[in-house]
């Protein structure tokens, strides 16, 4: 017999997004279950031993595990005290499906495998997906050559060093200047690995400026911009790589090739939201964020499924650079999921939604959420990224139906830095068909 656990809210993933979602769902009265495939709560933060987490939320620079503890300890306490929260650790959700409840509503059923509990299913009216993101691998990056041992993604290298206590090699080259790659350059250097340099195909670093300074400049590690790795050499183990300068389109310039000796190549070429479960449940992904399309509470926005309670938060929704915002999105989703489940259980009709699409105009990479439910009222948080550096800053105008909902000036705008806006939903005019984000130069946008 496969055992079955019923909850009001089920949270998949015990990283910062899932922890916040579960805590806020439980605080709002929902019987909440967390399903996490690893043996410990905390998600990716367990291996992020560097500090810099929690500045926005706690005003302190915490190490990753320290930040995660603040939430994980509360979850453990809530679990030991009562029935509201249950945590299934070492449990992997391998499939999700829908089931119709006696009252005609939808329920989500998760099929799980766990070392301790064997095979079990968990079911709930509200489902919160907090599955985080995964790293792009060399398969998705175009490199010629053999595939010898010694090629690692930055996250894997981080796991080896910080969790297993193993060094990946003696002399490393880092491809890609994303934050994890920069952090690993410093980490490897401090562990005694020679870090030959970081190579970035773009003309500017893709990580935060502070990480370029405190991870590379502090230790004299060279950052080679507009340069990439074109080949990996070595039979069984990496012996070296060929690097080459690239032109504006990112194409290697003939004659600029140079051989670099190394036994380790670390790839820090980006993260992709993890959404297998969302896709298996029929949710469409936004091509810009690679996450599902949601409203300001993280609730799925597919209009034809108006009675459904799937919520998405954290890195599963879009790749965040600050964990503080990951926690914020988890809280919103958890609370909304609890209220949704309660209403369904009590047979309260689901309020009509008034989903207005958010359109990020030219100059933006994306904006999240993709819809604002005007019927919800109150405040809504919008996150966005620009697609190119604006060293002179700019003015972002949120407009709808001819009205200006919000205008905000920024001293600098850079793609690695996600920005946050809070809008007053009531300022969106009735009958509006779109909410648009427009970017203007400082002078123009002033409207004075």
């Amino acid at each position: 017999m496969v055992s079955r656990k019923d909850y009001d809210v089920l949270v998949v993933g015990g990283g910062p997004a899932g922890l916040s979602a579960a805590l806020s769902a439980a605080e709002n009265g929902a019987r909440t279950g967390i399903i996490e495939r690893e043996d410990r709560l905390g998600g990716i933060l367990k291996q992020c031993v560097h500090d810099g987490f929690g500045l926005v939320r706690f005003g302190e620079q915490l190490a990753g595990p320290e930040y995660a503890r603040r939430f994980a300890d509360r979850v453990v306490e809530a679990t030991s005290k009562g029935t509201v929260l249950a945590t299934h650790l070492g449990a992997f959700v391998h499939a999700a499906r829908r089931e119709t409840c006696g009252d005609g509503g939808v329920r989500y059923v998760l099929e799980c495998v766990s070392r301790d509990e064997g095979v079990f299913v968990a079911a709930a009216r509200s489902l919160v997906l907090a599955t985080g993101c995964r790293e792009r691998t060399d398969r998705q990056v175009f490199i010629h050559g053999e595939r010898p041992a010694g090629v690692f993604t930055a996250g894997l290298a981080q796991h080896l060093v910080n969790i297993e206590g193993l060094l990946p090699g003696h002399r490393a080259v880092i491809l890609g200047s994303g934050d994890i790659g920069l952090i690993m350059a410093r980490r490897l250097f401090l562990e005694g690995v020679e870090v030959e340099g970081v190579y970035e195909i773009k003309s500017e670093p893709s990580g935060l400026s502070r990480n370029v300074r405190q991870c590379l400049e502090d230790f004299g590690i060279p950052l080679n911009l507009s340069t990439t790795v074109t080949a990996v050499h070595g039979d069984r183990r990496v012996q070296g790589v060929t690097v080459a300068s690239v032109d504006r389109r990112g194409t290697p310039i003939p004659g600029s090739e140079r051989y670099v000796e190394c036994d380790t190549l670390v790839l820090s070429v980006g993260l992709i939201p993890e959404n297998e479960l969302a896709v298996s449940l029929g949710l469409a992904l936004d091509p810009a964020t690679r996450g599902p399309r949601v409203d300001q509470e993280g609730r799925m926005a597919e209009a034809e499924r108006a009675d459904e309670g799937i919520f998405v938060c954290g890195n599963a929704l879009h790749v965040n650079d600050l964990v503080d915002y990951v926690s914020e999105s988890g809280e919103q989703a958890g609370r909304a999921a609890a209220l949704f489940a309660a209403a369904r259980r009590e047979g309260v009709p689901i309020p009509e939604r008034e989903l207005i699409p958010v359109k990020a105009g030219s100059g933006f990479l994306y904006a999240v959420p993709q819809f604002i439910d005007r019927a919800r009222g109150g405040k809504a948080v919008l996150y966005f990224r620009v697609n190119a550096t604006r060293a002179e800053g700019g003015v972002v105008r949120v407009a709808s139906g001819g009205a200006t909902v919000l205008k905000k000036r920024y001293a600098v705008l850079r793609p690695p830095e996600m920005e946050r806006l809070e809008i007053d939903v009531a300022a969106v005019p009735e009958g509006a068909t779109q909410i648009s984000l427009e970017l203007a130069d400082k002078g123009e946008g002033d409207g004075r």
Partner: protein
Amino acid sequence: MGAKRKFVCVVCPRGCALEVETDEGGLLVGVSGNACRRGEDYARSEIADPRRVLTTTVAIRGAALRRLPVKTAGAVPLGRLVEVCRALDGLIVEAPVACGDVILRDLCGLGVDLVATDSLERA
């Protein structure tokens, strides 16, 4: 002759690009580019004595995991980070450890403690 230097403030994720002017004696004359007061304080200490918080891991015995994440409770001189790391290479901590526990007092005579940044139970 004074000097002008440009560096990024690392106090918060905003990462303001500071322009820092010093006089002949190496003392701070002026800072621009900082969005808040902390940027100025940072520039002052960065010029006189750059310091960083060290985050790393140490070996642990008796827990389900092999490494315990740690940090220095305060900033240590940038130029001594490598030396401090090597000094920790041989250290083995005994589980259980709670987040915030002091692992070593007065690390390398720097007047700064080493503290745990995670809790690891006895397995």
